[in-house]
Each structure stands twice: as C-alpha cells, then as structure tokens.
C-alpha cells in the first residue's frame, strides 16, 4: 500500500490544488489505502468544504514571545540588540515588546544577563483534527490579523498518522509557507493550468522544488484539446506530466457547490485513479 507523503502545490493560486488533493484522497481511500489529508493552507483552508470532515479534536497553537519582568530589567539593551525583528525595544526607563513581530527565536531570553526575560505562549490559531469517513483529516486556521503562518503549518504537519498515504494540500506561492508545507514531503505534485499566468508560475514552482531537491511532476488541470502550452513547457524543462484533467463546466459547477467530482461525476473517476496509479509507480522509483 502507498504510504508516502505527497504534497500538492502550485505557484499560482486557484489552479486546482484542493480539487486534486481531495479527489486523490477519496480515490486512494476507495482503492483501499489508508489516507490522511493534511490541509496546510492555514490562511485560507478549503479542504474541509469538500471532504466535510467530522471534527473530533481542536486545540490552539501557541508561539513563544517574551515576557519581561520590569523589576529585574536593568535596561542594558542587549535584547533589542540581538532581536532581528524589532519585536523588543529597550528604552531608558521601560521596555516595549511587539508580539506580532516576534519570530520566537528566544534570542532575547537567552541574552538577558539579568534573567528578566521569560517566555509565554501566544495563540496564533487553531488546529482541528477529525475524519471524513475513513480519511483522516487535519487543518489549521490562522487567526485573522496574524502574519506568520509557518508555526501553525508545522503543528498541522506534526499531526496524524505518519505511516499512511499523507496528502498535503499546500498554500499557493513559492515562499515560506509553501516551503514549510512541502519541505519534508517524499514527492511533490505541481498543479497548473494551461494559461500564460499558470505557466509562468509553474516555472517558479519548478525552480522552488528543484532547489529543495524533492522528486516531482506536474498535473495539468483544465486542459483543453489543442492547447499545448503546458505540454511544451514541461518538455522544455524536462518535467514529467503525471495527469491531465480536462476542462469541463460540470467540474466547475461541482466545485462551486462543494462536491467532490470523484463522487458526482463517474466519468472523471478514471483521472484520479490513474493519477493514483502513476503516483504509486513514481514512488517506487
């Protein structure tokens, strides 16, 4: 049975990461795989809208921020000197902390010669676990107004069973939240669409995954007969295409109302079972 961690990513948003992730999860589960769905898009999680999991546990995720004991503080200024994020500022008579700027490195607490800085946890969002039928499910929800998602993403990634097929639904883009989500994956599927924006951002995503050194291939979503943009580009860059899912208004309609096409459009089932088989072959390589 397939027991790898596969991350579904893309440079451009809206290319079909959640569609591929959720339908692949269902296809694999129906084929007898034990599946765990990990939604790492903690800024805008959408997987639950399609898998409709029963949530059985929730907990808040905290990051460490400094707590200053003003009585012990000698206002030496070493904490503001070491902090790279302007999260702690030492003035002559007082000390200011800016929790949202803090990356939780602990530098200020380590450096304080007076032992005046301890750390407390600051809530940045909630992690929810549950299951959608036999499919295990976890996602995170970043609190509105919070800037830093990686600590919550790390908590989401740490949840759930490890020796099963783990499907990671990654956020869009190519920067820190994406790197955090896919860094530890065994395999990456880059979802693209055959438009100039889609291809441009696929190029950036290919650069990113190559930099990380993870094996990967491409799924072309909304592919159209006669449109060779994605095929030509992948050939040029020496990248394999694992599957092509045709453009179909019925898929857009199913997505629009939160239905899984694997369930509602029997003629689309084959695309996801084929994708699963191809993924299995790739995993053996």
């Amino acid at each position: 049975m397939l027991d790898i961690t596969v991350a579904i990513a893309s440079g451009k948003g809206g290319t079909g990461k959640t569609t591929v992730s959720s339908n692949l999860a269902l296809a694999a589960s129906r084929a007898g795989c034990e599946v765990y769905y990990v939604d790492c898009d903690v800024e805008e999680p959408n997987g639950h809208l399609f898998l409709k999991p029963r949530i059985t546990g929730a907990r808040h995720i905290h990051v460490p921020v400094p707590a200053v004991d003003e009585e012990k503080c000698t206002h030496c200024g070493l904490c503001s000197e070491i902090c790279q994020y302007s999260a702690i500022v030492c003035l002559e008579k007082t000390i200011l902390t800016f929790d949202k700027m803090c990356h939780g490195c602990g530098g200020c607490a380590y450096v304080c010669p007076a032992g005046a800085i301890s750390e407390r946890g600051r809530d940045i969002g909630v992690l929810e676990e549950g299951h959608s039928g036999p499919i295990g499910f976890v996602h995170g929800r970043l609190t509105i107004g919070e800037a830093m998602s990686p600590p919550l993403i790390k908590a989401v990634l740490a949840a759930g069973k490890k020796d099963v097929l783990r499907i990671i639904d990654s956020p869009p883009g190519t920067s820190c939240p994406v790197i955090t989500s896919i860094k530890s994956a065994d395999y990456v599927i880059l979802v693209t669409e055959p438009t100039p924006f889609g291809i441009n951002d696929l190029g950036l995503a290919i650069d990113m995954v190559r930099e990380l050194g993870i094996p990967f291939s491409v799924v072309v979503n909304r592919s159209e007969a006669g449109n060779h943009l994605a095929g030509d580009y992948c050939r040029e860059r020496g990248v394999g295409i694992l599957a092509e899912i045709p453009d179909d208004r019925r898929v857009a309609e199913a997505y629009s109302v939160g239905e899984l096409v694997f369930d509602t459009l029997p003629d689309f089932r084959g695309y996801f079972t084929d994708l699963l088989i191809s993924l299995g072959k790739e995993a053996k390589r």
Partner: protein
Amino acid sequence: MKEIVVISGKGGAGKTSLAASLAALAGRAVAADCDVDAADLHLVMSPRTIRAENFFGGKKASVNPARCSGCGRCKDLCRFEAITRDEEGSVYEVDALSCEGCGVCSYFCPEKAIDFKLVVNGQWFVSDTPYGPMVHARLGVAEENSGKLVALVRKQARIIAEREGIPFIIVDGPPGLGCPVIASITGADAVLIVTEPTVSGEHDMERVSRLAAYFNIPAYLCVNKYDINPGLSKKISDRARADGLKVLGGIHYDRSVTEAQIKKQPVAALNGSTASEDMRKIWINLVDQIKKEKREEGRV
C-alpha cells in the same frame, strides 16, 4: 492620491486580470505587483524595465568550517531546525532554507565561527508601460522576507506617484491573508476584494474581508465569473453588504480573460468584450464611491 489594493483570499480569483485592467482604465495610475512570490502582472503590462535593484531582505547565518569546533551550541539554541552536522560529522552547517535569520547561533558561538550577513532575497524593478509606471519584484527562489519586499514595492510606487502627481496606485495583491497580504494592505486607502461564486470563494472572501476590517480599511467587493452560479453570487454579495462592504458589480465568465493573457494585454484593452465592459463599470463605480466618500468626509 488613492492607493487601491486588489486582494481575494483565494488564489486564482482574478486579482491580476482585474488589477491590470483598473490600471489601464485609470488613465493615470502607478501599477504595483505585490504578489512577489508568483508575480504575473508584468505578463500583461508590456513593461520596459528602466531600473532594477537587488533586495536585501534580511540576514542569514553561515558556518565557517575552519573555525567551527563542533561544540554544538548553535544546534542547541536554534529553534528552527536549521543547524545540522556536516557529512563527516565534525562541524556544523546552516540549512539556508530553514534559517529564520534570527542570528542567535552567530551571537552565541564561542568560536565566533558563524557569519551573519545581509543576503540578496530578490530583485525589484521600475518599468514603463503603455498604461503608466509600474513597480514589480521577484522574490528569489525559496526565499523569505516577502513582507518586506511588498512594503518596498509599495513605497517605491508611492514615491513615483507623488513625484509625478499621479492620482492612483493600483496594487495587485497576493493570495491568502498572512504576512505579504498584511504588508500589502496596511495603510492603503481601500481594498477591492475579488471573489468567485464557489464555496471556497465564499469562505475565503469572508476571512479576507474580516482582515480588511481588522485593519480598518474600507473594502469593496466584486464577484468574478458571477454567472457560473448566480444564486451563490447573490448570497455572497448580500453577505458582504451586511458586513459593510460596498458591492461594485460582477464580471461575467468570459473567454476574453484568458485571451487577454495570451495577447499579453489587460482585459480592459480588448475593446467590446463582455468582461472588459464589466471591469469598466467596476472602475466607474469605484471612482464614484471614492468621490462620494471624500464628499462625506468633507462634510464631517
């Protein structure tokens, strides 16, 4: 001068297509692409770059192996799992992809073996386009500090607008609602949220409109591809109005949006297409609203 930021929460909702069109329709506007880790605005604006600069976003640590004694203090202190032993196991090294740039390892290294230096995280550009000046950027591959680069792009756009007396800055924002989105909208005059009539679009619009409210920024809404699911489009618009957003209109699902990308032009430059006409109405409504609010402010 008014700075309007196009955001969506959900990716692929149509931010770039709309932002490019608004910049073209404005007549006089500075366009700014703040989706720095997957920038696409340049693909439809025909930019001619007149200035290119390196972006130094932050510092990174690197171990000088000749001085490393292998004591492991750096590994003990690093909270980002960025320090590993090298292959022979005698000295340590920094994984640049995991390094958060906090400098703790360098500060506490007893051998002073860890350098902590500013690094280039990307490039930023000023270009001329047929529609006005444009500021854009490219974050380096797998780099951090996108929020700082976004702030830099907006600052440069503002400098140009002020210097040349240009009345609008149109910002193409990033997806999501984390660091780069917050950096894109704080202090802006208005955000224009683009969404689509899907359960994801509805969910993400609600979260991103709460983000705009959190930062006290007036928010407008338009529903892209609204005719795919008119019932849900109406529900989303009603909900947005109830939350205090002004609804500017909808954009039909129209092939001309992709055609414009292929022709490397803003949708609004394709005269007569349905989507182009919809976007023109949205721009007119937006300007009317802004004028009206200005008058109301004047009265208070």
